[in-house]
Structures are given as structure tokens and as C-alpha cells.
């Protein structure tokens, strides 16, 4: 027998390993490490947190580039990409949150005003106290022009509320102290503490807000650089267009002073095709704009010689000369303009180049460094299945099962749920066994009579009715309609009894059939044994045979059955608990299944399997101890 027990004990770790391996395969191999991480630390986590968790767990290992990136982030060189979004949402939400604090302060002010009127503090005292505190805090006195101006700025105005309330509370405290009313003093102390908390919280929130605004501004800078480049380019384009038109005007002006004849000669002598084309356009312009002063002068000369009237011609000459003068001036101006514009364009081009360079740098920062952190997935390798299994094993041995979806530790949830479950299952199990043994003995006692038959038939009928339907009808008729029991609910301590009676009764009814069947067969087997015949032959009474001989021997299979069942009682009853809203482990498990809360299910399965397995072992050993006839093969 010792060898048998030893062998079972040696088997045990292997089977335990197998059980853990099965749960490992079911829970770990079918989901990615990322989803596991999410199930452990919650859905609303950043990639960064997930990878941190995975690294801590040893489920991933970083490559060299990955390590560098992480180091850079740790040193604050790289802002995470998500910071922008965080900042954005914070900027949107914080004013609202702050406003809530201010609103609370304002409502508190009303309360304090009421209290002040209750304490019959005069209005002048209040005014004086408020003015003093405002002076201490560096706020403008109430009613002054500055205060009115400050009111335009919302935060300033709200900050002054805190000062007002503070002053008033101080005044209240003073009056309470004067009166010597201890209760009032305590009450006001509490009020002051509450107000102080409120103020501190609002201040921290405001500081945080400011910080985020700074961060957001930095990000804004990158965006602004982009706008700079755009603006410079636009400016450059318009200036460049001005430059081109000035150039055109200049060439037109130059044409006025160019002699078409000379140009023609030049064109004829020119052989280069490009220059020829240029000269041709200049010639065309010159033909259009050329004012031939010499020709007019010669005409005047000839006209004078012929004594003709030269007035018109002279006027023409004067006009021409004036036009040439104007043209010369304009030419000069245009040349200056051109020079200035050329400088402008050059400068703008330089600016543009600088801005573009800045922009490229900023873009590079955004693209290569900020964005690439999110691409960190490429910079690690998953660890192999063996390491994963080792980690899983250590987690189980250290009872680390993570958190539930409501972010409570699974272990504490299991511990809390265990007691209501035990309160239900322990009495239910023992009562059911008691009744089962009784009816089993009864059936064996009156074997092959109508009593036996009716017990068998009722047990088979009860076995065939669906348990869930039975619970529904029981709850409906016994609790809801007839009002014998509360329908659902639970209470701590002794009050739980009235909630537990019906579930326990239903548990007994549901398991009745199977139990009776088992017990009856076990007992009938014993009644056919030789020792029973011997006992009867000795002339012992039927009762002595039944209770002293048969019953004692049937206890062996019964005890082994109980040994298997008892350790898993803490898991509760999945269906009964959820029907009667008993906050035990069964209810919790059904809840977890419906919410697909993997951590809870895993913990329950692992605990259930391990306790079931240990119970199996214990029952084997008990069996061997109780019945030495067990073959030790």
C-alpha cells in the first residue's frame, strides 16, 4: 500500500504539469501576447504600456535599435506620439474640469453665506475680512476697476472666489471660537479642510493644464514652421512676379533709346540664333517705341530753311524731348526698382531655403523619431513557447492572475466569492448526501418491492428533467408565486439562511436522481456479498446486518466520492448562484463568461483543476487505506 501511495504521489506532479499545460495551451496559445497584456492591464492602455508589460513579463525581448529607442524616450529626447492626442484631449477637458471646481467653490460660497447669516455676522465684518484676505493674496479689492477687469479673465475671477470663501470661513471660525461652541468649531474646521482640498486640487489641475499647454505649444511650433515655409514661398512667388514685370518694363523703356537702324545692323551681323531672336524682339519693340529726335530736328532745319511754319514740329520736338527725359527718369527708377526687387527675391529665396530646411528638420523629427517609436513593434522578438510556459508556470505558482475587467485583483475576488459559495454548497452537499444515503439504504432494504421500484422510477424521472428548467419552476412557484422564500438576494452572516433554503432544496432535488441511483447500486452490490450471507446465517437481525455490515462497507466508495467532490465545493454552483444572485464564485464565473473576462475564467479553471486533481489523489489514497483489497498493480 505504501508503494501504491508513493507511486500516486510521484505521478502527481506530472499530472499537475499536464493540467497546467492544457490550460496554458487553451489560454496562451490561442491569443497574441498583446491581447493577453490588454486583458491583464486593461483595454485602455497605450502601446507603450503594453510593451513595457510584455518586457517585464519576459514575453518579448528588444533588438538593439529597439533598446536605443527606449533609451532615447527614457531620456526625454523623444516625445511619444500619443502625447499630442493626450494634450489635445486634456486641453479640451481641463477647462471643463476646472470649471467644476470653481462651480463647487461658488456653491460653497452660498453655503458659507447662509452660515454667516445664521451666525449673525454683520455685513461690514464680512466686507472687511474679505478685503483683508484679498489684499494678502495680492488680488485687487472687490468692486475696484481692476477687479472688474480681472473678472473678464475667467480663471482670475474664479480664483478670487476661493479667496472670498476662505475669508468668510475664517470669519465663521472666529465667531465660533468667540461663542465657544465646540461642535460649530469642528464643523467649520471640516468646512475649511474641504475648501482647502478643493483649492489645492484646482491649483494642481491648473498647473497640469499649464504644462500641457506648453507641450501643445511646442507641437504647435512644428506646425507653425510648416506655415512659415508656405508663407515665404507665397511671398517669394509674388515678389518674383513683380521682378519679372519690372524686367519687361525695363526692356520696353530701353527700347525707346535704341535705334532700330543700329539694331538692324547688329541683327544682320549677328550669327547666333538665340541672340538673333532676342534682337528681333528688341527691334520690334524699338520700331514701336523709337522716337527719332534727330529726324524731327532735321525736318525742323529743312522747314526753317524753307521758311515754313515750324510751330507744330517744334512742339512735336519738345514733346519728344520731354518723353525721352521722362523715359530716362523712369528707366533710372525702374533700374533701381529692379535692383531692389532682385535683392528682395534673393533674400526671400534664402529665407525660403532656411524655412524649408527647418521644416524638413521638423518633419524628420516627427517622422523618424516620434513616429518610429510607434513602429517599435518591428524592434523586438517574441520569446519562444518554452519560456512562455515557464513564465505561465511561475505566475500560477505565485498566484498572479491579473485583474478582472473591473480592475480588481482576481485573487481577492476569488477569496471573497468563496465564502458565499461555501455557504451554499457545503450544507447542500451534506444534506443531499444524507438524504441520498437514507434513500439508498431504504431502497436496498426493500429491494425488489414496490418501494424500491418507486424510488428507482422517481430517480430516473428526476434525472431526465432538465435541472435548469427545474430551478426556474422552483423559483417561480415556491418563491415568486407562493412567497415561501425570497426570490433572489443574499445577506451576510446569519441573515443569509432565508436566501439559501430554496437553492439548497433545489440542489438536493436536482442531484437526487443520480445520487440515489449510485447509492442504491453500491448498496445492492454489498448485499450480494458473502459476508452478508454469513452475518445472516449467524442469525443477526436485518437491521444489524444493514447498518453494521452493509452500511459500513458502502462507506468506502461513498467516502472516495465525497473526497472528490468536497474540495471543488468552493467553486459553488454555476447555475444556482446565478439564478438566485448569490455573489459566490459560480455567479462570478457565469458573469465572467458572459463578459469574456479571461483572467477570471483562467483562475477558476486552474484552481478547479488543481483542487479536483488533488482530491482525486486523496480519494485514491483513502480508498487504498480503507480497503486493503485494492489491487496494487
Amino acid at each position: 500500500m505504501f508503494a501504491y501511495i508513493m507511486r500516486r504521489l510521484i505521478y502527481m506532479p506530472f499530472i499537475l504539469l499536464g493540467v497546467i499545460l492544457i490550460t496554458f495551451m487553451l489560454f496562451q496559445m490561442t491569443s497574441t501576447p498583446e491581447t493577453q497584456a490588454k486583458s491583464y492591464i486593461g483595454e485602455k492602455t497605450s502601446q507603450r504600456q503594453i510593451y513595457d508589460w510584455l518586457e517585464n513579463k519576459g514575453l518579448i525581448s528588444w533588438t538593439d535599435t529597439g533598446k536605443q529607442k527606449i533609451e532615447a524616450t527614457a531620456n526625454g529626447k523623444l516625445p511619444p506620439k500619443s502625447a499630442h492626442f493626450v494634450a489635445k484631449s486634456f486641453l479640451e477637458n481641463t477647462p471643463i474640469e476646472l470649471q467644476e471646481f470653481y462651480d463647487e467653490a461658488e456653491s460653497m460660497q452660498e453655503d458659507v453665506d447662509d452660515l454667516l447669516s445664521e451666525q449673525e455676522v454683520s455685513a461690514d465684518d464680512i466686507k472687511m475680512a474679505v478685503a483683508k484676505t484679498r489684499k494678502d493674496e495680492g488680488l485687487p479689492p472687490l468692486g475696484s476697476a481692476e477687479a472688474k477687469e480681472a473678472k473678464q479673465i475667467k480663471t482670475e475671477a474664479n480664483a478670487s472666489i476661493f479667496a472670498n470663501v476662505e475669508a468668510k470661513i475664517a470669519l465663521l471660525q472666529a465667531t465660533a471660537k468667540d461663542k465657544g461652541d465646540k461642535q460649530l468649531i469642528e464643523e467649520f474646521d471640516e468646512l475649511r479642510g474641504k475648501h482647502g482640498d478643493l483649492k489645492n486640487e484646482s491649483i494642481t489641475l491648473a498647473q497640469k493644464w499649464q504644462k500641457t499647454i506648453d507641450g501643445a505649444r511646442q507641437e504647435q511650433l512644428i506646425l507653425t514652421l510648416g506655415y512659415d515655409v508656405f508663407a515665404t514661398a507665397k511671398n517669394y512667388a509674388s515678389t518674383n512676379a513683380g521682378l519679372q514685370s519690372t524686367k519687361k518694363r525695363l526692356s520696353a523703356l530701353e527700347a525707346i533709346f535704341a535705334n532700330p537702324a543700329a539694331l538692324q545692323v547688329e541683327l544682320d551681323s549677328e550669327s547666333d540664333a538665340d541672340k538673333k531672336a532676342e534682337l528681333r524682339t528688341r527691334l520690334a519693340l524699338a520700331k514701336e517705341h523709337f522716337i527719332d529726335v534727330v529726324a524731327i530736328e532735321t525736318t525742323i532745319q529743312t522747314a526753317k530753311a524753307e521758311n515754313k511754319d515750324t510751330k507744330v514740329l517744334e512742339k512735336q520736338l519738345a514733346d519728344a524731348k520731354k518723353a525721352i527725359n521722362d523715359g530716362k527718369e523712369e528707366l533710372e527708377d525702374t533700374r533701381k526698382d529692379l535692383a531692389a526687387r532682385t535683392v528682395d527675391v534673393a533674400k526671400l529665396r534664402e529665407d525660403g531655403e532656411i524655412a524649408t530646411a527647418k521644416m524638413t528638420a521638423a518633419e524628420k523629427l516627427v517622422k523618424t523619431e516620434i513616429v518610429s517609436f510607434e513602429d517599435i513593434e518591428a524592434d523586438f522578438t517574441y520569446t519562444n513557447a518554452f519560456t512562455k510556459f515557464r513564465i505561465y508556470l511561475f505566475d500560477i505558482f505565485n498566484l498572479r492572475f491579473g485583474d478582472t475587467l473591473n480592475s480588481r485583483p482576481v485573487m481577492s475576488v476569488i477569496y471573497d466569492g468563496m465564502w458565499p459559495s461555501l455557504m451554499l454548497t457545503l450544507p447542500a452537499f451534506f444534506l443531499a448526501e444524507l438524504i441520498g444515503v437514507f434513500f439508498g439504504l431504504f431502497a436496498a432494504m426493500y429491494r425488489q418491492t414496490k418501494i424500491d421500484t418507486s424510488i428507482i422510477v422517481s430517480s430516473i424521472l428526476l434525472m431526465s428533467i432538465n435541472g435548469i428548467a427545474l430551478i426556474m419552476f422552483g423559483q417561480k412557484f415556491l418563491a415568486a408565486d407562493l412567497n415561501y422564500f425570497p426570490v433572489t438576494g443574499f445577506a451576510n452572516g446569519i441573515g443569509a439562511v432565508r436566501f439559501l433554503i430554496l437553492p439548497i432544496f433545489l440542489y438536493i432535488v436536482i442531484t437526487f436522481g443520480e445520487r440515489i441511483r449510485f447509492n442504491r447500486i453500491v448498496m445492492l452490490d454489498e448485499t450480494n456479498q458473502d459476508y452478508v450471507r454469513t452475518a445472516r446465517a449467524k442469525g443477526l437481525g436485518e437491521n444489524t446486518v444493514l447498518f453494521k455490515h452493509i452500511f459500513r462497507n458502502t462507506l468506502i466508495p461513498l467516502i472516495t466520492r465525497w473526497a472528490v467532490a468536497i474540495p471543488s465545493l468552493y467553486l459553488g454552483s454555476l447555475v444556482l448562484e446565478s439564478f438566485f444572485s448569490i455573489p459566490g464564485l459560480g455567479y462570478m464565473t457565469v458573469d465572467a463568461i458572459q463578459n469574456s473576462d479571461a483572467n477570471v475564467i483562467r483562475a477558476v479553471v486552474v484552481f478547479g483543476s488543481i483542487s479536483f486533481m488533488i482530491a482525486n489523489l486523496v480519494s485514491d489514497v483513502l480508498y487504498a487505506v480503507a480497503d486493503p483489497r485494492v489491487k496494487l498493480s
Partner: protein
Amino acid sequence: MPWKEVLKILIKQKLAMMCLAIILVSTFFAITASWFVSDIDLQANHKVDDISNLRRFEKTRLTEESDDLNYQPSKADIDAAVSSDENSLTGMERAYHPPGWWLAIHPDHDHWKKTGKGDDGKPNPPVAIDNRDWALFGAKAWRFPMGCTVDGVPVHYKLLRGLRLAFIIGLIPTLLSSIIAVIMGLTAGYFGKLVDDLIIYIISTIASIPLLLLLLAFIQSVSSSKSIQQMLESMGAEDKAIRNMLLVLIVIGLTTWVGLSRLVRAEVIKHKNREYVHAARALGYGTTRIMLKHILPNVFHLVIITFTLGFVGAMGLEVFLSYVGIGVESTLPTWGQMISGGRLELQRDPSVWWPLTFATIALFIVSLAFSLFGDALRDALDPKLRT
């Protein structure tokens, strides 16, 4: 196995034969269920108070060729549509219509005077309308012998279709688990030594996990795995409800083979040193042939017994899983869905007891027949196996 003698023993037992008759009849109805009840009958949620539904109602009932979507039925049309089919009640009247004979027994029952909607937004059972002939032996009293569901589908239609699903639910897991158990048991028992040790290790490991918890863990992990879903989809199960049900059934099959394989292994060990096996070996037959053609028929009674009892177990598990809310989806008219959905219906103020009750009775009859027949079979085939 002396099958003829077994049959003789069985025929002598009246109860077993009755159970066999019930099983055969229900098998017939399970196979032919869709001839009696078509898919349209199960979707027949004709709510006349809703215009869009009325249009559908009209279309299917009167003018099946009409495609005019802007068709607005007049009052006369509605009356015509309703009265054209003498068996038809309007949707509101059919939703949660109590069994006719129940109305006949309780004509002035206060409950039936409540109309409109219950707390859960579903319609209440209708008023017992005076001008209907609710005499107990009148025709109308037996129009809906089991009442109607919330969709206005007669419960007996749903039960009949559920019977087919119940057979599928019983069959697939038990078949699968039998196949696995036979393969495992045969190899372990026949080859012995290291193979036996390995398989026994697997068996005792799986047996160390409570069945329900193993099932839950399995379904939880398998249903969340996309690759398995895709595999099933590529195998032809395109409907998601069917796919999830298949998945659950396969998982039940994969987790319940342990007990049978232990029995088979023990029996094979007994048989493998018998003369007929030695003779077969001496004749030079291959291992596979000896295992499948010589040993398997001699241990097959175990498979049959476990099969009939596993059938009932799988149907019970389906009810449990439906209640817990994994696997079988509420769109399928399984008995488990009817039972687990009955919880809220039973708690309504005019209590709607009929879908739950009749589903329970149906499940009761089928599982009783199967378990009694299985017991009789076991007694006839192998009296030693009685536990």
C-alpha cells in the same frame, strides 16, 4: 457479440421497446422537420400594427407578385388580409398567444385582460376575445395547442425544428467523442508499453479537469481564435450562428471522450491475448486489420451504450451552455434556447409559461427515452457494466 440474442432480450422488455419507438418516431420527425415547418413559418412575425411589417404581411399573404414599395394598405386591405386566411391571427394576437385549451379553461382569467407591452418591452398575452369560440373541444381551442412565442411562432413548430437541432446536438459530439475514444482506447490497449503510458497520461490529465470548466475554457479560447473560425467558414459553415454551434459541439466531443476510451482500453487489453487474435496474427493479418476487424466488433457494445447515454448528456450540456450564453446563439430554435429564454418569460406578470414548459417536456421525453433505452441496452449487452 451475439446481436441476435441481445435483440431477443430487448424485445421482451416492453419499456425498452416503447423507448425505441419514441426514439424512432422522433428520429423520423427530426429528419423530416423542415417538410412540416419551413423557415418562413419560423420567421412569421406578422405585426400588423407596424406598417412595414404589414407590407411584408400583405406581400406574402395576398399579392406575392406586388413589388410596389410605396404600397399603403387600406383598412379594408388589412381586414381582407387577416380574414382571407381563416387560420391567421394578427401579429399582436399571436405574440405570446396562450395555448387554446388554457384559454378555454381560464376564459375570464384576469391575466388575459392585460394588453400592450410588459416591462421588458415585449407584448403581453392577448385578451381572451369573446367572439372567438374558446370551448374546450372547439376547433379554435386546439389551434395553438402549445401557444405561441413572442414572435408569434407556434411553439409546436419551434419544438419540431428544435427536435432536429436536438438530434444534431446529440449526434455530433457523441460521434466525435466515440471516434476519438475508440482510436485512443484501441491503440493504448493493443500496443501497450510506451504508447499506453502516453495515452493513459493524456487521459488522466484531461480527467483531472472538471468537465464543465474544461468545456468553458475550451470554448472561451476556441471561439476567440480567428483562425478556427476561418477554417470552419472555409468548410462551408457560413452562417455565424451555425458556426458557433458547430464549434461548441466539436468542443463537447473533444472533451468527453475520456471515459469511453478508458473502458475500451480495458476491454481491448482483455481481448488482445485471446485465441482469435492470436489466430488472426498467425494468419499474417496486419495490425490495423486485427484492430478494426477483429477486436473492435468485440468491444463495440461499449461504444453503443456510451453513445446513447452521451446523447442525453450532450443535450443537457447544450441547455447549460445556452443558459450561460456561450456557443449557441439565440437565433437558433434549439430547446436549450427555449428553456433558457423561458426564465424571463416565466417572471412576467401574466406569466408566459408555455414555451419553457413544453420545451422542458419535449426534452424530458427524448432524454428519458434515450436513457431508459441505453440502460436496457447496457443490461442486455454487458450486465457487468452496471454502475
